[in-house]
């Protein structure tokens, strides 16, 4: 069984701040991490391989050359191979172009099961996984919170919904996107850390893919960012003044007037 896990290296966005004067992002010194949901995807892949007693887990990432570090970290957890898709032609990809590129690479690598995180914390779109499945013309199940069984070319999983969960069966090959409840990602072992240092990370460029060059990167992206801005203040805001007692009195008066209470 061949398992491919798509992982993304993301800035630890909890640390990203805005410079209020220039309205720009302060990203200096912000660490890069493996997207937290993708850690659960890696763990799921490793558990499937262990349960089957056979097979391989390949981690795939598209990003700048330094995204190699994310793949080494994945090696330290126990995956078999890391593949880095890096090329200037991929720069500026939106979710459509990202999914297209990853799908082309997965066609090349070959996979029975593809696992993605539910979403990446830098964009929070949750689109790349299902889009990859569509490009590969295979089924997918999103928000997987438990794997019930995996055998004989089919898989049964639990899909998290707003009001509970669905038990969904799918034929293979399939793409899953996973939520945090699925598992607890393992810590790298000492042996794993050694392996990570020595591992050879396979690199792929645009020319290694059977891809339409017009569908890559910025040029292949249907969406464009027109501008970015900081959220504005409400115009009708009222700051309440006086002692604490007075402030609360004013507030209650205002709220009573609005029939809020």
């Amino acid at each position: 069984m061949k398992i491919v896990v798509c992982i993304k290296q993301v800035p630890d966005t909890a640390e990203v701040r805005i410079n209020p004067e220039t309205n720009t992002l302060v990203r200096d010194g912000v660490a890069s991490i493996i997207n937290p949901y993708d850690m659960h995807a890696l763990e799921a892949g490793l558990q499937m391989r262990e349960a089957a007693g056979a097979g391989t887990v390949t981690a795939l990432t598209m990003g700048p050359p330094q995204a190699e570090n994310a793949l080494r970290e994945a090696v330290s957890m126990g995956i078999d191979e890391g593949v880095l898709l890096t090329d200037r032609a991929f720069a500026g990809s939106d979710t459509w172009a990202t999914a297209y590129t990853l799908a082309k690479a997965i066609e090349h690598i070959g996979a029975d099961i593809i696992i993605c995180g539910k979403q990446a914390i830098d964009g929070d779109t949750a689109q790349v996984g299902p889009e990859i499945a569509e490009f590969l013309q295979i089924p997918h199940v999103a928000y997987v919170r438990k794997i019930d069984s995996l055998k004989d070319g089919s898989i049964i999983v639990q899909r998290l919904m707003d009001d509970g969960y669905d038990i969904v069966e799918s034929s293979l090959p399939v793409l899953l996107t996973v939520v945090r409840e699925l598992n607890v990602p393992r810590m790298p072992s000492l042996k794993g850390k050694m392996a990570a240092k020595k591992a050879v990370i396979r690199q792929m460029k645009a020319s290694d893919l059977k891809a339409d060059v017009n569908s890559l990167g910025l040029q292949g992206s249907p969406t464009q960012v027109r501008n970015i801005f900081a959220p504005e203040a409400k115009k009708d805001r009222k700051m309440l003044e006086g002692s604490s007692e007075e402030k609360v009195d004013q507030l209650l008066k205002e709220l009573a007037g609005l029939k809020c209470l």
Partner: protein
Amino acid sequence: MFIRVNTDKCTGCETCLQSCPYDAIIMKDGKAEITELCQLCRACLNVCPEGAISEVREEGAPGKEKGQGKGVWVFAEQRDGRIADVSFELLGAGRRLADILGAELSAVLFGSSEDGADELIKWGADKIYHCPDEILGVFNDEPYAQLLSDLIQEHKPEIVLAGATPVGRSFIPRVAARLNTGLTADCTSLDIDRETGHLLQVRPAFGGNIMATILCPLTRPQMATVRPRVMKRGVYDPDRKGEVIRISDRKISSRTSVKDTVKEASDLALNLQEANIIVAGGRGAGGEKGFALLYELAEALGASVAASRAAVDEGWIAYRHQVGQTGKTVGPKLYIACGISGAVQHLVGMQSSDIIVAINKNPEAPIFNVATYGIVGDLFEILPIFIRKVREAKGL
């Protein structure tokens, strides 16, 4: 679409060469020529003194081309015969967009029950495409994606909106991939650019620290998802009439099947979304002692308690109470934020509340930007007074 030089008009003045950021215009036999480097950015369109450069739109061209888009569509999600609330909110937003464009607003309804179609019309739709095929009774991605894509290709709407629910977020990306068009997730506001007619899609970006306006200029439809409770419903008109178009017996298949559906109050569903009043605490609540005050106030007000992610991460309160980008989106009549700084990720989850009260000791805290009423002060001082006075007023 492509850009063309009318060689009869071109005088070879070379004015257009500098306008191209991609060096895609060259001179050949004394005339300008657009090469394959062209990115269709349109920067050259208005620079030619002779008006020799124009854009050419092809009709029905395959691939990523602009279609002859007509109208605004809303995917009206239905589960167990009940239409999801977000569908009505999308109709509110969709009605506005359709009116600006002078276009029709249609809703797409899947599943055997047609009862909802009438309601969708009263909430603003002109037309309903209803497909009752049995395979759509439970949610599976492939049949949903296939049928919606087929309908879009047949009718060519300009804009397609869907709820950012587990269902919408799962299958709508497949539709966008299949149609080779863009999709913008979790939009917080939608508008039409009056000059170009493009859909302006605003969403939090870079982990929610800033807002971005996203365009999908060249491909159609323009697709966006919106979280529940972000948009307001439109006007309900009980006398409104519309057309229901039935679609049936489509050849659709699925490689996934739902074996069972288990209802449980999962972390995603807590009554927060129905609450009229919410008292929310952040890191400023300092711990369980602070949250005890919040619960006291909530009890006095008959409110529910929510929290920022910082408070959840500290372990002071369970995840299901989290409001924001990675938590719930709420829209109560009154939201009282105590000791919450107002990071965009939090704001996107509560901004549509009718009235927002912020209590924070830092006068610069961004939460005051969205507040209706702001109190600069220590919550440990303000809240006990607040609780006492509410109790007094209610005779508790």
